């Protein structure tokens, strides 16, 4: 098959702290509507940071996506978000959703950091009480990492590559690039790509213990996540899932599908925890190399990047990331692209962050708009020293977008950068 095949995005699904559908997500990002809330559960457990982002799933939405039997003993929140986002995306793509036929040329790469923390906790209690038989039949599927991709494949009849990837906070962007490569290499016509992350104290606790979350905003949760701001003081943990349907341009055109954007390519690398990189901090040169190689792979010139959707988590490292973008693109001041981070309104959704933000990035291309940043009282001086302050928009900007660069970075000094373009036939 042709190596020149183009890969486009034809379906979107999202379960985010501030919206449960792609239409509502567009509205929420456009208006800077926060989904971050004070969590009573975290207060009772004496977490220092009691603010978090949790999708507001109603029983009605759960009933739409899970049978009564599937809901029995279902505690894996990330898996639930993942399945809902994937079913939304597949339905949105218009690929034969209702007939539930077998799609041997469509696969799924759906990542996660872990699966079913609450289910695993329940299992541990049963086992420690000498009652392993009480685990029933649902423990394995909910706690195996690939439970989410297996579940999605079963719901939608996907018969190509079915797997789960994991690379901390770069998981979602990595999933997109894995799916892209699969299609590009001719081994699949379409791929559902995405990622998810559980809600709750068992997934967020470790970060609270590391003292990298904001602790002074428990009474004003919507202000807690402050990307780019001089007073950014830690990321707010979030949760949810995002899913994108990728397919060959040929397939999309033959079905007259809506094409939201084109995936031009990208790159994945690691700083090897050298040159200032560590388990938790990035090697800046590797970050720059990842972005530069993504551009080369995509055959996109740095001057064609009109928007950056950064990783930008609202920590003291935000300035370092902006400097790395500036060096990699060789652009600064007024010449720098618009840059935003959705983490001010959804928090850092960890393994789900990349895919949720890719859905938002795709919507920016589809609507030709740059979503605003909120909670910037004053730009961090390190950022102002590199780029013009107008490049960090505080209001929506309607503008012609040629291409967008999306990066995600994760614990382990791992980097992912994807380049998306506005589709032109």
């Amino acid at each position: 098959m042709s190596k020149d095949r183009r890969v486009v995005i034809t379906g979107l699904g999202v379960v985010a702290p501030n919206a449960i559908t792609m239409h509502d997500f567009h509205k929420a990002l456009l208006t800077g509507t926060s989904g971050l809330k004070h969590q009573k559960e975290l207060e009772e457990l004496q977490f220092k940071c009691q603010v978090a982002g949790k999708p507001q799933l109603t029983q009605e939405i759960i009933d739409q996506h899970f049978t009564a039997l599937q809901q029995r003993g279902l505690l894996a929140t990330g898996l639930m978000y993942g399945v809902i986002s994937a079913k939304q995306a597949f339905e949105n793509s218009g690929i034969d959703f209702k007939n539930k036929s077998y799609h041997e040329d469509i696969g799924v790469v759906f990542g996660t950091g872990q699966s079913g923390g609450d289910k695993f906790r329940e299992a541990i209690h049963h086992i420690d009480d000498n009652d392993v038989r009480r685990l029933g039949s649902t423990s394995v599927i909910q706690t195996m990492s690939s439970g989410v991709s297996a579940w999605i494949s079963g719901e939608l009849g996907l018969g190509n590559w079915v797997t789960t990837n994991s690379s901390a906070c770069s998981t979602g962007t990595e999933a997109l690039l894995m799916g892209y490569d699969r299609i590009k290499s001719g081994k699949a016509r379409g791929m559902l790509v995405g990622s998810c992350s559980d809600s709750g104290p068992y997934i967020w606790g470790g970060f609270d213990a590391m003292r990298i979350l904001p602790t002074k905003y428990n009474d004003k949760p919507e202000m807690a996540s402050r990307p780019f701001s001089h007073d950014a003081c830690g990321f707010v943990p979030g949760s949810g899932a995002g899913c994108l349907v990728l397919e060959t341009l040929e397939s999309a055109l033959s079905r007259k599908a809506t094409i939201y954007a084109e995936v031009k390519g990208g790159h994945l690398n690691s700083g090897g925890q050298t040159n200032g990189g560590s388990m938790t901090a990035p090697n800046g040169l590797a970050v720059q190399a990842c972005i530069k190689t993504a551009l080369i792979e995509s055959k996109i010139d740095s001057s064609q990047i009109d928007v950056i959707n950064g990783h930008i988590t609202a920590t003291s490292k935000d300035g370092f990331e902006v400097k790395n973008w500036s060096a990699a693109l060789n652009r600064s001041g007024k010449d720098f692209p618009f840059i935003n981070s959705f983490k001010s309104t959804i928090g850092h959704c960890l393994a789900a962050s990349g895919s949720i933000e890719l859905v938002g990035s795709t919507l920016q291309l589809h609507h030709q708009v740059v979503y605003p940043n909120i909670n910037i009282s004053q730009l961090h001086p390190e950022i102002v020293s590199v780029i013009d302050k107008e490049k960090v928009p505080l209001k929506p900007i309607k503008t012609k977008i040629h291409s967008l660069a999306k990066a995600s970075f994760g614990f382990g000094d791992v980097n992912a950068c994807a380049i998306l373009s506005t589709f032109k036939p």
Partner: protein
Amino acid sequence: MTTQEINQKLLEIVKVYLPQDVTESSIKPESHLMQDLGINSAHLVDIVLDVEDTFDIMLDENDMQQMQRVEDATTVIQNKL
């Protein structure tokens, strides 16, 4: 508990695990749980746990193996009550 009462409670348990294309009215005493009703073998484990909770009994390995048809389950339960 009468056989009828046991069967009624058993029906309530089993119907939850039916595949979407099998209706509740298909559940007969002689129905084989897997072959006739199409219940996933993994779910037999859950049916056993539900039976234990509902009738407040304990089922061992031998009991589980016996529970092939609905009427087998009724017999196993009757013997435990």
